[in-house]
């Protein structure tokens, strides 16, 4: 086997973040090469550099013996690099054949030659060992078949290197087996596959080699038959918990919120209790149902089954409005999209949910508004020239504080933090952590969804770990280690350690 692609000292710096740091990787022709790492390890950035979506800050790539400082998206395609993302890039209203030949339609005398395209599509699919009706509309296909269409499309473009980003995530067990067969077919045709997955079992089943990344750095590469799962996990987490976390207030035994058997379209039988003054961490992989649990509590997704009690009182949450009235606040993951109105002033954002309470006759009581905003500004030390500043002009950390201020203004007792420090610089992170502890000392209770292991371990009084829509385990203070959390998050049964 010969080396097809070499990444040499690739570094990618985003403002404030070193997403990739001196990464060196080799890929061999016709191998299935797994790339693993925690959220934020740099896998997505790596893919984007390969497909030409990002330009590396430094480093070189060598393909077929030729050196490049970066690829344009067009070059990447010409060189035979394709990627299959978690979100498929297909046109749902077109047929399978039309999608596969999208942008490269076969014509005869200026007209589309549908019969020809359908025939070629059928042949390509049969080569992969699957049968798909070329005339079926993509929107009518199941996820597994849509994925096949993506793969066939890549193959028809002469893909030599195929990046697959979490390909098994949307599939059932049987479908995964079928997908593996396709991968083996591709491999036998000499296609190199970069297989990105959180599910370590799969990697042992389908991959030849595995490379491990952590915090933007390349750690090591090993043959899958020469490395144990425990070793992989150890490499993935292998950092010291560098950041310091303020000591917690310690929770009381008083139960403030109780979720019992919550079921929505995305989660299944989620039950837990939140104590007053507690920070309850929610760990798990992206898509494990943590945000969806928050959505159920906050009335965004409607409950199919189960109930929520706040302070022992049964609660029917039909909309965010009800949740807020019952003292629940949500600090969403994407604060720009869901948390703030960037075109509004800081003070207007802070008081947005309590305008009904600060009125004088029918008008907003602007003096009261200013008083409340100034108080929260100094409590949370929000840095802004004036409270009349448009929120879009604030830094990420300060924007996050404005969202928190908004919920503190509603005087809610339960705060759900979804990825509280995403996209926030280190200094501001520490401030947010301190703030969260101050809040629990004031008797607020916090549900914290976090994909950052140090944060989860450092901040939580208890950690619930979710996997594929249900709770897969709960760890109390003193019980948790990064390895244990990662094992539960990647689907191992509770108690089933050492597997």
């Amino acid at each position, binding site marked *: 086997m010969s080396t097809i692609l070499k990444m040499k000292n690739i570094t990618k710096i985003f403002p404030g973040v070193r997403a990739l740091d001196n990464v060196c990787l080799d890929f061999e022709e016709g191998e299935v090469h797994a790339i693993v790492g925690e959220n934020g390890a740099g896998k997505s950035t790596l893919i984007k550099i390969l497909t030409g979506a990002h330009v590396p800050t430094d480093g070189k790539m060598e393909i077929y013996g030729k050196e490049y400082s970066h690829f344009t998206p067009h070059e990447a395609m010409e060189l035979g690099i394709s990627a299959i993302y978690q979100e498929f890039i297909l046109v749902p209203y077109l047929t399978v054949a039309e999608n596969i030949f999208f942008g490269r339609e076969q014509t005869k005398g200026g007209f589309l030659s549908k019969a020809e395209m359908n025939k070629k599509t059928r042949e390509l699919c049969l080569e992969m060992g699957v049968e798909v009706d070329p005339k079926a509309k993509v929107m009518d296909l199941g996820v597994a078949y849509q994925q096949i269409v993506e793969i066939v499309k890549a193959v028809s473009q002469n893909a030599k290197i195929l990046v697959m980003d979490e390909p098994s995530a949307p599939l059932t067990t049987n479908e995964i087996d079928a997908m593996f067969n396709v991968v083996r077919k591709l491999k036998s045709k000499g296609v190199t596959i970069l297989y990105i997955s959180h599910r370590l079992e799969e990697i042992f089943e389908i991959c030849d080699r595995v490379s491990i990344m952590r915090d933007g750095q390349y750690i090591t590469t090993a043959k899958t038959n020469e490395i144990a799962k425990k070793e992989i996990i150890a490499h993935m987490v292998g950092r010291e918990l560098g950041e310091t976390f303020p000591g917690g207030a310690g929770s009381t035994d008083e139960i403030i919120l109780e979720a019992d058997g919550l079921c929505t379209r995305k989660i299944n039988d989620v039950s837990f209790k939140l104590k007053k003054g507690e920070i309850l961490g929610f760990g798990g992989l992206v898509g494990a149902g943590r945000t969806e649990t928050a959505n159920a509590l906050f009335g965004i997704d409607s409950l199919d089954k189960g109930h929520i009690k706040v302070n022992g009182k049964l609660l029917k949450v039909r*909309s965010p409005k009800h949740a807020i009235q019952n003292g629940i606040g949500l600090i969403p993951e994407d604060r720009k*999209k869901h948390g703030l109105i960037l075109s509004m002033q800081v003070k207007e954002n802070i008081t947005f949910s309590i305008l009904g309470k600060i009125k004088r006759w029918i*008008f907003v009581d602007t003096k009261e508004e200013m008083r409340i905003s100034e108080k929260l500004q100094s409590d949370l030390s929000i840095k802004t020239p004036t409270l009349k500043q448009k929120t879009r002009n604030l830094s990420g950390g300060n924007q996050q504080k404005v969202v928190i201020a908004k919920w503190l203004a509603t005087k809610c007792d339960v705060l759900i933090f979804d990825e509280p420090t995403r996209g926030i610089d280190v200094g501001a992170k520490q401030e947010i952590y301190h703030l969260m502890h101050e809040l629990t000392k004031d008797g607020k209770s916090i549900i914290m969804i976090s994909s950052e292991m140090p944060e989860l371990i450092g901040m939580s009084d208890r950690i619930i770990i979710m996997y594929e829509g249900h709770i897969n385990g709960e760890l109390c203070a003193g019980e948790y280690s990064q390895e244990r959390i990662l094992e539960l998050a990647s689907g191992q049964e509770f108690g089933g350690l050492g597997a």
Partner: protein
Amino acid sequence: MKRKFNVGDFLSKYAIVLVLIALFVFFWIASDTFLSRMNVFNIFKQVAVVGIVSVGMTMVLLTAGIDLSVGSIIGVACVLTSVLLVSGMNAGLAILITLVVCAALGMLNAFFINQLKIPPLITTLGMMTTLRGVAYLITGGMPIFGFDSAILVLGKGMVFDVIPVPMIIMIVIFILGWLFLDKTRFGRHIYGVGGNEEATRLSGINVKKVKYIVYSISGFLSGLAGIVLLARINSGTPKAGDGYEMDVITAVVLGGVSISGGEGKIGFVIIGVMFMGVLTNGMIMLNVQEYVQWVIKGFALLAAVSFDRVVQNRKAKVA
């Protein structure tokens, strides 16, 4: 932290004021009669209809919506009031019924937008044609004359012999609109829906209710404008208000209200309205051919929208 004075920011904020002044000076020089007392009052009388409607349109655009049906609602209001008056109904009652009907028509717009999730552009486009048809059907295509002259004071009346009543109505509506948008929580909610609808919903605000209110206000004010127009032209014609949506939207966008919603101040909208009034009137005074007027007005809208896009894109880069 002290903010530096930025020429670019100043210009982008007050551009419309400068352009209005320039336009004014241009017509003053180009036409002998433009600045006559008579004509200035004429301008104020003429802008009143567009001005009243533009307050409602401002609210609609702030929610990132649009209302193309305003011109046709003016037409419906015009003929409905005439029919009621000719039937011998008390003028006050006729006006009240018309306003309620027009508010309900606005609410119907919001029904399609909220309940059936039809984009505002399409919903109100459909309503625009439908209601124009209704206006013609009510009168059988003919204008209606000969009703109680009590109503004419709304269109032709003067206070202290100098200030036209339509202008007073317009100013009152602008003040109410300003109080509503800038001083009440409903106003904040309107800005919120346009700025970030999802974040607004997640802040516990009933977004649908906001839209019902906004489109109803737009319908109501179009009705009021229709009555003022009727009182001025003294004839219930089904053609009334034809094409006004164009003038109104141009005025509002010229006044700095973003077509993507969430940003804009009603104080500047009145400048946009004056601009459209001065432009229309000045072109007539200079005997500009009607087709040329269309070209210029259409271009004014495109220029205003392009300017808005440039400003918004620049902000998006900052954020």
